[in-house]
């Protein structure tokens, strides 16, 4: 629900002429005014300064508690207009969106508002004069405020200050002859031009420097273009000591919230798209009773919130099972967030999963929401869970047990409701024995284990899968390769497929690319027969690279650069190749012939 939705909802309140409303952040600053209020005051949110029962801004805690109570408590209150005029009214506060920390203030029996009705033609400017100039109107906020209020001009020269100054800086006002204001962005006077270019309310962390010392606090900076105030800038300052911090005031601008929301929504859509793009339950291809049993397990657990652990060799299609669980679950219309624990650097893991606050660590220049928070209400897929660093494991355990996360740099727990699907090709039980995976986490993940069988245990599916991938890849590659030689299919049926379904798909893709007719060219797979033993082991990346470079060097008879050389075959820069060879301890002289 965005602010615009709330607006539509609360317009209903205005059908009763006794009510109008505005949407405020929890510190009482106005984020959005109803049209009736706006037209009545002929003004913008910046001019109506605040609505607040205490007549003191930043008294968030109290307001928030009121809103938290869930009751529409009627409060006698004042509305501050043009910084120095006050109107009496009754308000009811209602928290409308705890996440965005917004309240709605229903304003009731606001005496002057009664005069405003849709039939009241020229209501805008004229109505300003109709405000009853009673006691409320002559009430001067500046005089009675316990906050320091300063008016100053373009040069930063202070034109007017209220008596509260002495309270704030704890010094007799007559003894203060120098006053400097410094915001967290720099000296105030230097900021004024920027602020003028984009006039709105700024709430800034700032320091007041007087000849009696420094006073830290928050200032709210506003602009006045009319004649009713003596200077264009007004600042209201409150000491840090007097504030019960209930949030970060700098983050409270609605624009920022909306911007962040947009980013999240966009990302959610992207994630949804990426995660489930092109996936349909009808894509599953099998005749194998064993695999059908696995699918039955998937369907059995899908509509619960139970944690699922999918195990099985690499390339068996663990993500396909995850997608199936998601599609069959009651959360299928919510988000699914996929995280590959193996691809995230250990030091970034915590902030990736749980998010971080601004300034939590060097380089954390923005608040960031973690994957778990993003997945709230939906599903998270933790691929390669076996790669999760051991120091992260207790934190994940906590999410699984308590449903709570903590952003890095903020100890306040955040409740999340996330269904967890984890997957790994590693044997977690062995890892537990070796001490690299926590036993308690293993048990918590292993509630509903699903073992995905390797392709060699469902050989009856190979012809079906070949057909399926040929259809799919013909479309992708824009080809029309329809046939496969009997002996090629025979080979595929016998082959061990250490890389499982993924390997089969890659073989078919290569075969289609190489096909010169409408028959798939699988001549290259026969090399596999000689080169790959059934006990094929996955080589480490460097070993594989070394073996490959040696193979090419043999082919080109040790020639590294120039025509028909290894660097040409491998399509890399010869200098890069030479440095690689040095690193891998390969001497081209060994391959001269």
């Amino acid at each position, binding site marked *: 629900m965005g602010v615009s939705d709330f607006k539509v909802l609360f317009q209903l309140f205005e059908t009763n002429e006794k009510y109008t409303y505005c949407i405020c952040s929890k510190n009482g600053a106005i984020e959005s005014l109803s049209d009736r209020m706006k037209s009545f005051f002929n003004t913008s949110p910046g001019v109506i300064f605040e609505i607040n029962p205490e007549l003191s801004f930043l008294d968030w805690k109290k307001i928030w508690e009121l809103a938290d109570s869930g009751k529409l408590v009627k409060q006698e209150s004042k509305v501050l207009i043009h910084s120095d005029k006050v109107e009496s009214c009754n308000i009811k506060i209602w928290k409308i969106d705890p996440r965005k920390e917004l309240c709605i203030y229903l304003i009731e029996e606001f005496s002057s508002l009664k005069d405003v009705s849709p039939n009241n033609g020229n209501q805008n400017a004229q109505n300003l004069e109709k405000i009853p100039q009673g006691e409320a109107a002559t009430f001067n906020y500046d005089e009675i405020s316990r906050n320091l209020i300063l008016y100053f001009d373009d040069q930063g020269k202070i034109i007017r200050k209220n008596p509260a100054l002495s309270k704030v800086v704890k010094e007799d006002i007559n003894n203060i002859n120098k006053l400097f204001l410094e915001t967290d962005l720099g000296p105030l006077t230097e900021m004024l031009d920027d602020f003028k270019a984009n006039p709105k309310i700024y709430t800034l962390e700032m320091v007041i420097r007087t000849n009696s010392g420094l006073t830290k606090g928050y200032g709210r900076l506003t602009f006045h273009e009319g004649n009713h105030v003596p200077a264009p800038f007004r600042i209201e300052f409150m000491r840090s000591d007097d504030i019960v911090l209930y949030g970060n005031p700098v983050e409270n601008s609605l624009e920022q919230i909306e911007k962040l929301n947009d980013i999240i929504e966009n990302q959610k859509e992207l994630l949804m798209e990426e995660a489930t793009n092109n996936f*349909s*339950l*009808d894509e*599953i*291809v*099998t*005749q194998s009773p064993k695999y*059908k*049993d696995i*699918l*039955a397990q*998937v*369907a*059995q657990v*899908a*509509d619960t919130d139970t944690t699922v652990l999918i195990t099985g060799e690499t390339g068996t299609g663990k993500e396909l099972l995850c997608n*199936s669980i998601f*599609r*069959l*679950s*009651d959360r*299928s219309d919510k988000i699914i967030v996929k995280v590959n624990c193996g691809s995230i650097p250990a030091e970034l893991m915590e902030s990736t999963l749980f998010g971080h606050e601004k300034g939590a660590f060097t380089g954390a220049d923005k608040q960031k929401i973690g994957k778990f928070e993003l997945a709230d209400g939906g599903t998270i897929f933790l691929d390669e869970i076996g790669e999760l660093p051991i120091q992260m494991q207790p934190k994940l355990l906590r999410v699984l047990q308590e449903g709570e996360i903590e952003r890095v740099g903020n100890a306040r727990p955040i409740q999340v409701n996330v269904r967890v699907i984890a997957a790994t090709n590693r044997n977690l039980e062995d890892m537990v024995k070796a001490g690299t995976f926590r036993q308690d986490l293993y048990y918590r993940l292993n509630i509903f284990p699903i073992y995905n069988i390797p392709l060699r245990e469902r050989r009856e599916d190979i012809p079906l899968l070949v057909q399926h991938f040929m259809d799919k890849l013909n479309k992708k590659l824009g080809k029309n390769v329809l046939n496969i030689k009997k002996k090629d299919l025979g080979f595929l049926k016998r082959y061990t497929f250490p890389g499982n379904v993924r390997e089969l798909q890659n073989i078919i893709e290569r075969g289609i690319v190489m096909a010169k007719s409408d028959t798939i060219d699988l001549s290259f797979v026969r090399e596999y027969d000689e080169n790959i033993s059934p006990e094929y082991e996955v080589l480490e990346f460097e070993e594989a690279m070394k073996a490959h470079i040696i193979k090419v060097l043999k082919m080109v008879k040790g020639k590294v650069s120039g025509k028909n050389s290894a660097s040409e075959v491998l399509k890399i820069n010869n200098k890069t190749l030479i440095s690689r060879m040095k690193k891998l301890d390969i001497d081209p002289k060994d391959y001269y012939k």
Partner: protein
Amino acid sequence: MQDYTADNIKNEISSGIRRSDKSPLIVVFTANWISSSSIVKVVVNKIKAQAAQASVLEIDTDMNKDLVTKYRIHKLPTCLIFQDQELTHKLEGTFSKKDVLQYL
């Protein structure tokens, strides 16, 4: 509630008389040889357990070719939902429990 068999339903649906009560009727066309047969089986059982007000019937398409023709079943599985004795929804392809229950 009366038990529904393929024969029963065939008679009722094809004769146009249909069922006497107005409770929802869910008819699932499936076959053992389709890839998602085991999923369909589990999902149908879950629907039966959760939608007590509805009758759920599985039709083996190999045995009931005439119904396949009559209801123009092009894809397996297909789920037909009858409400107030009218066909209201047709779900083609593998469906979830939620896909069906949302229409009841």
